[in-house]
Structures are given as structure tokens and as C-alpha cells.
């Protein structure tokens, strides 16, 4: 049995065969792009399509962000549209809200998702509520791109996965792409959406490669993707945890357990039907997410499955998430805090009553 990887890596990148667009791949050129390249391509295409789209954030222009996700955009679109800001997250996100209300379609870059704590008023009290409080008159077509994910040895203030916080707020939409294909299609949808969208990218996934068609496409929100079909257990996984779940599914194959891996892709809107239908089919469900377990995304999804598929389940819905501690720095400590292929494999074996 191969040693499981501790998190998403390029080795687990999905292949073109299991992609939904593969049927048309005979006429569509499919390239292998990295996650970062897919993000950049989505931004570039949308900026070419719509001059109102601009980027605001720290070191987004010449530096292309510390992750080099935006490299090359300022050369094409200029500093008037790829705009370096001061280290001033609340300020420039607030500017994004006001600009979105008045005809611009800003994409705000929050370098580390941990810094979302600094923009909570702008997102929660302002962006999320403007449309509702104004009786539907003002709109906020704002995208906030942020990162999530541990195991980068960045310690407690640069490693959190805080998407559950935003998923809790009516008025926001929350997107968690797990592959280059999804990242591109979902980001284009986010930019065209008339609501504030928070788009989380796993910073450990930026170099992961995967197939991306060269033709134009978008992916609708609220549509889960079955990353792998299976019969015995449903593993619902988000963002960084999708590759972990696929790794676990490979391990489970070897012990005769057929796992279905489902990626909701957006925590809000949430494709409850696909999750429930899969759980009904397999009679077992595990939810894996890199946020904290307590009051987190896994709790919500487990509850949706329990309510929707209770009489079809052979056991309780199990959950795996980040250990309830600030993310530690030391590698053996940090690695212990997040779900792995192995821990998901073991949970599935337990649920399927296998040794």
C-alpha cells in the first residue's frame, strides 16, 4: 500500500477522463494548466471581456502577488486596472464595496485568508447587507479572492481556513474550487455575479496541474461535482480536501471499498440535492473540510445529509476537519492538525466496519 500524501499535491490532479467536459474534448483543445494559471486566465478573459473589471490588492501589479498568481496581468491591463494598494485590507475592501455599488466590478485580493478578519465589517455588515437593506435597489458585484489551507509552515496567522465564517452570512456567496478547471469556470461566474462573492483558493494547490479547455466556459454556482463515482461510501470534500478524499478513495479501492467523492464547489449556494442523493445511494457519508470542525462547514453539510438521507444511512455521518487548535508551526505538529488521505481512509473503513 502506498504511503498517503498529507495533503493535496500535483500527483493527485484529476485526469481528463473523469471530467464532465471530456465528452466534447474531441473538438475542444484541453491544456494542462496549473491552478494559478487557471485563475490568471479567468481574470484575463474577464478583464478583456469587461472593462469594468479591475483588481485591487497588495502587491498585485508587478509582483503578481507573493504566490505569483497574477503575474503578467499588469503588463496587459496596466496599473489603472491592476491596482496595488497599501497594506490596508479594510480600506481597500471597503473601496471595493463602494466601487461595486457604482458601476465597477472589482476583484479584491486578500493575500492570506487570515486577513479576512480585518475586513469582516466590510464583508459582513456592508457588502452582504447593502442589497437587502436597500430593499433590493443597490447591488454589490464584488469578488473577494482569498486563500486558505495549512501545511505551508506559515504558522497560526497565515494558515487558517475561515470559509465557514463567510458561509454563515446571508448575502454572501462562497466558492471553494478544488481543481484548475473548477477554479477558472467558477471565478468567471463569480466575476459576472451581481452579488458579493468570496472565492477561496487553497494556496498549496496553486501549482497543481489539471486539464482546462481552451474554449470559453463557466461553471454555475450551487452545482456539486461528482469527482469520482462509488457505491459504498460518500466522501463530501471541499477545496484542498478534494485531493485528500481522492487519495483516500484510491486507498479504499485496495481494501474493496468503493468511495464516491463529491465536491460541493460552493458552500453557498449549496447543492443539497446532490449530497443527499449520493448519501442515499451509498448509505454512508463522511464530510472532509480544512476548516475547524466545531460549528464548521462539515457540521452544516453533515446536518444536511442527516436530515435528507437519515433513513437511508447505515451509520452516523462522520466529519474530518482541522484540529481545534491555532495552526502550529513545527512540521510534525502542523501535519497532525489537518485531515490526510490516511485519516479519511481510516474513517471510511470504520464507517464501513472494515478493520
Amino acid at each position, binding site marked *: 500500500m502506498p504511503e498517503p500524501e498529507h495533503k493535496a499535491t500535483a500527483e493527485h490532479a484529476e485526469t481528463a477522463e473523469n471530467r464532465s467536459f471530456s465528452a466534447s474534448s474531441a473538438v475542444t483543445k484541453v491544456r494542462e494548466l496549473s491552478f494559478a494559471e487557471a485563475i490568471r486566465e479567468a481574470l484575463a478573459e474577464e478583464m478583456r471581456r469587461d472593462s469594468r473589471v479591475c483588481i485591487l490588492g497588495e502587491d498585485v501589479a508587478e509582483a503578481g502577488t507573493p504566490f505569483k498568481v497574477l503575474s503578467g496581468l499588469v503588463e496587459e491591463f496596466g496599473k489603472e486596472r491592476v491596482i496595488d494598494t497599501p497594506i490596508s485590507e479594510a*480600506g481597500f*475592501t471597503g473601496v471595493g464595496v*463602494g466601487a461595486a455599488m457604482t458601476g465597477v466590478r472589482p476583484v479584491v485580493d486578500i493575500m492570506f485568508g487570515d486577513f479576512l478578519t480585518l475586513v469582516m465589517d*466590510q464583508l459582513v455588515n456592508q457588502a452582504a447587507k447593502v442589497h437587502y437593506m436597500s*430593499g433590493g*435597489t*443597490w447591488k454589490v458585484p464584488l469578488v473577494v479572492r482569498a486563500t486558505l489551507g495549512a501545511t505551508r509552515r506559515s504558522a497560526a496567522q497565515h494558515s487558517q481556513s475561515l470559509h465557514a465564517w463567510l458561509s454563515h452570512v446571508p448575502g454572501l456567496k462562497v466558492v471553494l474550487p478544488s481543481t484548475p478547471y473548477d477554479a477558472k469556470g467558477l471565478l468567471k461566474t463569480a466575476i459576472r455575479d451581481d452579488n458579493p462573492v468570496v472565492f477561496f483558493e487553497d494556496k498549496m494547490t496553486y501549482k497543481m496541474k489539471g486539464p482546462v479547455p481552451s474554449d470559453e466556459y463557466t461553471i454555475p454556482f450551487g452545482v456539486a461535482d461528482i469527482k469520482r463515482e462509488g457505491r459504498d461510501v460518500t466522501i463530501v470534500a471541499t477545496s484542498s480536501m478534494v485531493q485528500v478524499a481522492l487519495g483516500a478513495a484510491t486507498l479504499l479501492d485496495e481494501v474493496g471499498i468503493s468511495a464516491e467523492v463529491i465536491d460541493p464547489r460552493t458552500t453557498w449556494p449549496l447543492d443539497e440535492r446532490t449530497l443527499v442523493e449520493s448519501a442515499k445511494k451509498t448509505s454512508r457519508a463522511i464530510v472532509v473540510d480544512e476548516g475547524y470542525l466545531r460549528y464548521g462547514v462539515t457540521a452544516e453539510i453533515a446536518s444536511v445529509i442527516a436530515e435528507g438521507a437519515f433513513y437511508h444511512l447505515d451509520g452516523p455521518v462522520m466529519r474530518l476537519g482541522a484540529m481545534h487548535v491555532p495552526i502550529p508551526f513545527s512540521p510534525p505538529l502542523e501535519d497532525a492538525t489537518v485531515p490526510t488521505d490516511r485519516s479519511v481512509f481510516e474513517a471510511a473503513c470504520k464507517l464501513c466496519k472494515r478493520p
Partner: protein
Amino acid sequence: MTTATNRSAADSATAVERLIRMYRRMVAIRLFEERVNDLYTRALMPGLAHLYIGEEAVAVGICEALAGDDYITSTHRGHGHCLAKGASADRMFAELLGKKSGYCKGKGGSMHIADPTTGNLGANAIVAGSAGIATGAAFSSKYLRTNRVVVCFFGEGALGQGVLYEAMNLAQLWKLPVIYACENNLYNEYTHYSETTAGEILARPAAFGLAAESVDGQDVRAVYGTAARLVDRARRGEGPAFLLSNTYRFRGHHVGDVSRDYYRTKQEEQRWMVERDPITILADGLIERNLADRAQLDRIHSELTSEMNAAVESALAAPYPTPDEAEQDVYA
């Protein structure tokens, strides 16, 4: 010569019309707010409201300097800003009463009046909560080349919030057409601003390089004159400004704040109300300079009284939204 004389006469006619218009707007706000207080004390209005009485010259003077499609952001004490920017009293009252015909279909209430048709980006119940939004609207003005100017209204209490300084820094860096309009009514809720505000207020925006000026906020002519200069400057692309209007909140922090002895004296309140009422100051000025007579001003007062009474009646009679509307307008 003749042309110059005619223009001068026309200009002064326009100037008089402007003064009368500002008088009318200030009285409208005063009468509106008196009715809000009345609705509250008669238990006809849900929740609370923060009255603008005493500060009318600030909103009216500044909004007079704006074009119809210029933007404002407002505050929890925002009825005056909304009315000064052109909101209609009946839809305002309806919103305060939680009625479907209100500006926000009853979903916003007193602290969240918003109206795209008058450029009102919304009142904000987070102190300094609209600093980013106003600056963002100014960003749009520059990005889309619409040449609109934005006024961000806030009270001196907002001076304690960091996001205001982030926004001013961005506005100055990018030379955005936004006026940060600080209304110093002396009290952060129930605390005198001297207990909360270190240093000189104007030194703060000046440190960022903003044009920073102060004005007597009880003198609508002075407010208008200064605001017009700063608005023109912003529209010419010369950057943001900070306008400090020194004013006074005649009433409590909100309609229920009636026992105020623990934070300010009745003598202080009386002094402001008798000597520094912005409506009286303008009325006296108009009469002294023979630009209006008492009967004309009384007529304005009585017309507006009828209008406001009718607006209250129509709002009271208007239907509430139905419960199923609670789930509408969450997403665009």
C-alpha cells in the same frame, strides 16, 4: 456693461433662490424630525431614531453644493442627509414605520435609508462604516470618468475608527473626488468628544495631505460656500477634502435619550437652541438683508407643515410588507 449688470442681477437672484431653497430644506428636516419624535413618543414607530435637529445646516449646505447625480453616504443620524439630497418625506416616513412603500421596502428602517435615484448610497449604522463605500464610489467616478463627487457624512465619533484613516489615505494617494464631511456635534453618543479625541481634528486629514477646513456648522451659507469650493476642487481632479462642521445635537443621542444631565447641562442645550439655531440664523439674515420677509418664511413653514403631516398620514396608512418578503432581496 449691461450684460455684466444683468449677469450680476441674475447671479444675485440665483443666490437668493438658493438661500430660500436651503431655508426650505432645513425647515423640512426640522419638521420631519419633530414628527419622528412624535411618532416615537406615541409608540407608533418601531425601534429608535437618531434625530438631526440642530444640525440641519450641515446636510443642507453640503448637499446644495452637489449635483443630482453626485453621491452621498449617510449615518445612523441620517434623515437630514437623505432629505437634503432629495429624498421624499412620505417614503422616508414609510421606511421608518417599516412599511412596504418605504425606500427599502421596510427592510432598512431609520438607519439604512438608501436611494439610487438621489445618489444616496445608504445610511450606515456602523460608525465610519461608509468610509470605504464613499471612497469606492469616488474610485468609480475616476475609473469610469463620470466626474461625480462623493460626500461621506460622519459624526466626530467616527474619528475613533481606523478604517476612516485607511480610506483617507487611499483617497489622497489616488486623488479621488470625495469629501469627508465630519459633523462635530460635540458628543460621541453620551461622551464629550474631548474625552475621545486626541490632538487637533484637522491635523489628522492634514497629515494625509487632504485639503482640510472647518466651518460654522450652524451657518448654512458658510457651510455651502466652503463645501462648494471643496466640491469644485474635487471635481477638477485636485483630490479629496475633509470638511469639519462644528455643530450641536439639540436632542439626545436617540429619541429615547431624554435624561441627559449626566453628560451635559440644560444650560448648554438652551444656549445652543436660543443662540445657535441654524434655521433662526438664516431667517434673521434673510430678513435683515431684505431678501425675504417674515410672512414669506411663515408661509414656507406652513406649507411644509401640511406636506409633512400628509406624509405621516400616508405612511401610517400604508401597508406593511407580508412575511414572505423577508426572504426576498437577499441576493440580486
